[in-house]
């Protein structure tokens, strides 16, 4: 049952994967309209990407933060070590969100798909 479902899924994905270039070729005749459409969609995508990145970045930072605060509450003597590692971890998580922010900013302002 499971394998049949997986096979069906793969088949659908393959069909869609072959179908999308065909669809794109149909609409590529009017390239100006396509690029306007693409810019619109890229801006919408950038907003959603930023929202998702901020949400999950905040979630993961909150997990790290709560664990660190619990650790400090149990063992206040280790506060300095924990704080250093906490800042490092928060920074490494945050930088991923910042990458998405930069990509979104490029999509917002540079508009690489405006052709």
């Amino acid at each position, binding site marked *: 049952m499971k394998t049949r479902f997986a096979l069906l899924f793969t088949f659908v994905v393959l069909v869609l994967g072959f179908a999308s270039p065909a669809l794109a070729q149909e609409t590529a005749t009017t390239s100006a309209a396509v690029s306007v459409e693409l810019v619109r969609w890229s801006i919408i995508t950038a907003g959603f990407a930023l929202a998702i990145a901020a949400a999950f970045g905040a979630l993961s930072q909150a997990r790290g933060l709560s664990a660190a605060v619990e650790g400090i509450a149990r063992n206040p003597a280790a506060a300095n*070590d924990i704080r*250093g*590692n906490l*800042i*490092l*971890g928060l*920074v*490494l998580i*945050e*930088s991923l969100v*910042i*990458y998405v*922010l*930069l990509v979104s*900013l490029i999509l917002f*302002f*540079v508009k690489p798909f405006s052709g």
Partner: protein
Amino acid sequence: MEKLEHPLWIVDAANRIFGPAVNALLGLIGMRAADPANPIPNYLVIAYLVVAGLIALAFVLRSRLSVENPGKLQIVFEDIVGGLSGMLSDIVGPKGPAYISLVGTIGAFILACNLIGMVPGFMSPTSSINVTLGCALTVWVYYHYHGMKEQGIGPYLKHFAAPPGAPLFIAPIMLPVEIISHFSRVLSLSLRLFGNVFGEELVILILFSIVPFFAPLPIMFLGMITMPLQAFIFVMLTMIYLGGAVAAEHGHEEAHGHGAAADAHGAVA
């Protein structure tokens, strides 16, 4: 993104004074400025301003140094230097405080660059990718140079292929991973600082264009907290990379001695 930048009077003044000379110099090496009327961009003018201010501060501080009767400024800076060398000896190891010159200079430069954006009439030079990439490349070259100097070129390069204690046959897997991770350090260092500072300025600008009064103030207050934090983070990552390069050789027997540095080295991609 040029349309977002407003003209700054100090940049205009600098271009009026130094512009022709810069154009002539660029002409000598066979290049042309993109905009011959204003050959010096904003971030460069303010970065040089920050450098000049820091050098002036250092000279004023040096002329007032005294052992018997330290001034307030001297005490503040002694605390800063003491804290930095303490962090260096924690993270890098006993030889750490020798590297305080570059670490402290980069920290002071980035801190001043970040904070000068809060002053009306100025912008943060670090909100340009060129400045942050320059800082990141400096750090990158510096820690590789010191790693080679401490361990010798051969052992340092061998450390990329196989970490100490690991068999040599993992080299084909380790080498590409290590090389990519070391190049991505430049990218992550520069993009992190640039993204933070530029995002901050952009949020302030957008809020300012919606409500010109008081609305950007909370964000600017947030900026007063996050900008020094970003400078601190840059300095801390510099120290961790230095520690990874300098102390990697005796990481085998001393890994438990400075566990924080070893952990951090493992965690930082």
